[in-house]
């Protein structure tokens, strides 16, 4: 059985400054989170592909991805088994959504991260471009 360890880290930082009459005012905005995953029964899959305006369906039980032992990764148990996903697309603006209502957009390789919500076993992700064109995408799914 494979052993999965990893992390999903998000680091948002902005500095907003104004200089008036020789006085600089500075506001910093930060939002950070680094969640480590060390569960012995963790599962992770990465799926790449291309899409147009028609949905590309990404199955999760089983997925098409093989783990380090060569076994197909299968998110096959109860509600909440898929915890989070990360999505990146290049080309046209693309949407990744699941049947639990999570909807993440990406373009320009800018990565989106989302909690998978209360996704049920056997449910799928759907990926498509928003209005036109095609996109290449990468989807990382983490669950237990």
């Amino acid at each position: 059985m494979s052993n999965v360890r990893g992390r999903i880290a998000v680091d948002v930082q902005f500095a907003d400054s104004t200089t008036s009459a020789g006085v600089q005012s500075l506001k910093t905005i930060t939002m950070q989170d680094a969640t480590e995953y060390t569960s012995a029964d963790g599962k992770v899959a990465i799926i790449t592909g291309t899409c147009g305006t028609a949905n590309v369906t990404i199955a999760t039980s089983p997925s098409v991805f093989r783990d380090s032992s060569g076994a197909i990764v299968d998110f096959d148990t109860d509600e909440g088994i898929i915890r989070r996903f990360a999505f990146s697309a290049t080309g046209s603006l693309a949407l990744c959504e699941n049947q639990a209502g999570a909807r993440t957009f990406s373009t320009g390789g800018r990565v989106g991260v989302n909690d998978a919500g209360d996704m049920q076993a056997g449910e799928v992700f759907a990926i498509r471009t928003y209005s036109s064109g095609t996109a290449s995408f990468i989807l990382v799914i983490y669950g237990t």
Partner: protein
Amino acid sequence: MSIRGRFGIDVQFTDSTIVSGVQSVKTLALQGASEYDFGKIALVSGTCGTAVVTVPVSPTTYRDSGGNVISFASVSRVAFSASGPNLVACDGSGGCGIDDWTIYSRAGQVAVSESLETVAFSVNVYGTTGTAAYTLVMYGS
């Protein structure tokens, strides 16, 4: 006013198997760091229950470094975090019909999405059960 900032995302997993003394390792990574040197940024925090809390965007309740209230004509990227064990949703609606983003958070785990919101849009926060504190960062123009 000058804005400089970044959204950095770093996803890394190592998947290893040992069979008969042989270790097989797969490394999965997805990373992105986007720098921004113009635009508007606002941070809004609050609490919510299961009822929808509409987050004002034009104007917001947030003041920039010059003391002026931030008002968005469009929002192009959002980051959202909610505390507690229960799922909390944040969505943008009205700007692009049925295709708006919905990002979920719980336990302080940050969710990020591009946003298409440009016309008469609203941003909403609501929980599935109980109450939660939330923080929303909106970047746009």
